[in-house]
């Protein structure tokens, strides 16, 4: 998406702030879910998955990445503190997405922590 005369730095921060956390959670969900399926399926006899290790690793990496993208969002938010969120692009638009991202990333942080904790607290493959 090329647009006239934009510095790359703030652009990258804004988009990473917006999408970083979301994509992190996606990975945690898909891999984390896949691991439990692999661990609790018949094939585990040959695969031998260590589910806790996976989930802990996923949660840790996830938290780190989400904090990074929240940091990016907050930095853009600070950069554009004097800009109106419906103001002219690119600053106005950066402000707009930074406001959104700085709140949105919180949800992903909470989801990653909660589901990670749950996957660790419960004993593997005990049917609900």
């Amino acid at each position, binding site marked *: *998406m*090329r*647009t*006239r005369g934009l510095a790359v730095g703030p652009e990258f921060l804004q988009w990473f702030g917006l999408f970083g956390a979301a994509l992190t959670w996606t990975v945690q969900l898909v891999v984390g879910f*896949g691991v439990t*399926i*692999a661990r609790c*399926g*018949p*094939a*585990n*006899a*040959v*695969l031998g998955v260590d589910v806790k290790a996976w989930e802990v690793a996923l949660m840790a990496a996830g938290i780190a990445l989400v904090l990074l993208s929240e940091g990016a969002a907050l930095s853009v938010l600070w950069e554009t503190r004097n800009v109106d969120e419906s103001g002219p692009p690119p600053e106005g638009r950066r402000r707009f997405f930074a406001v959104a991202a700085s709140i949105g990333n919180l949800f992903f942080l909470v989801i990653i922590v909660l589901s990670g904790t749950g996957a660790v607290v419960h004993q593997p493959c005990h049917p609900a």
Partner: protein
Amino acid sequence: MSALPHSGKATTPRAVARVERARLARPNGWWGMAIFVATEATLFGTILGTYFYLRFNNLHWPPPGVPEPKLTLPLVLTAILVSTSVPVQLSVSAAARGQLPRARAALLFAAVLQAGYLGMQLHLFVHDVHEFPPSGSAYSSIYFTMLGAHHLHVFVGILLTLWILIRTASGLTSYRMNGLRATAFYWHFVNVLALCVLGTQLSPLA
């Protein structure tokens, strides 16, 4: 605002090249294909996901009596297919510079390779069907569904390429240029897909 490039009026290679230079963002056609590719990618994502879901659901994979997937021939064929991304991309950049003959030559070359690939793959496919029919087990069902879906996409890609070749025979317009861009994008996608499918297909060997 009349300074804006008018893609509709660009009906000569030179005019098309001018529009291509002046444009800031990608054309609607490219975006259309991008979204289409996104949904296609999801489609294959679910197919590959299903493959591994069923794999986790079975102790023996492939099940007893079904041969392990062949290694070399699929590898070679996929390498050939993936390599066609180069001529396809060359064709786009040539057309964008207004060099229509070169663009069509590159495209034709790619189409020949892709057709050859498809022919060989279909031969393999039929051979496998006789060896372990899809109705045999979950493994063979997902195996043939996955490969069949990919071959279908290659076939569609070849149709698109032929269509562009036919249309550009009577010269280049911005409309056809967009078509070419879209087709090229589609091919790059199908080639990446080929790698994913191959990886999945060969996963039992790992």
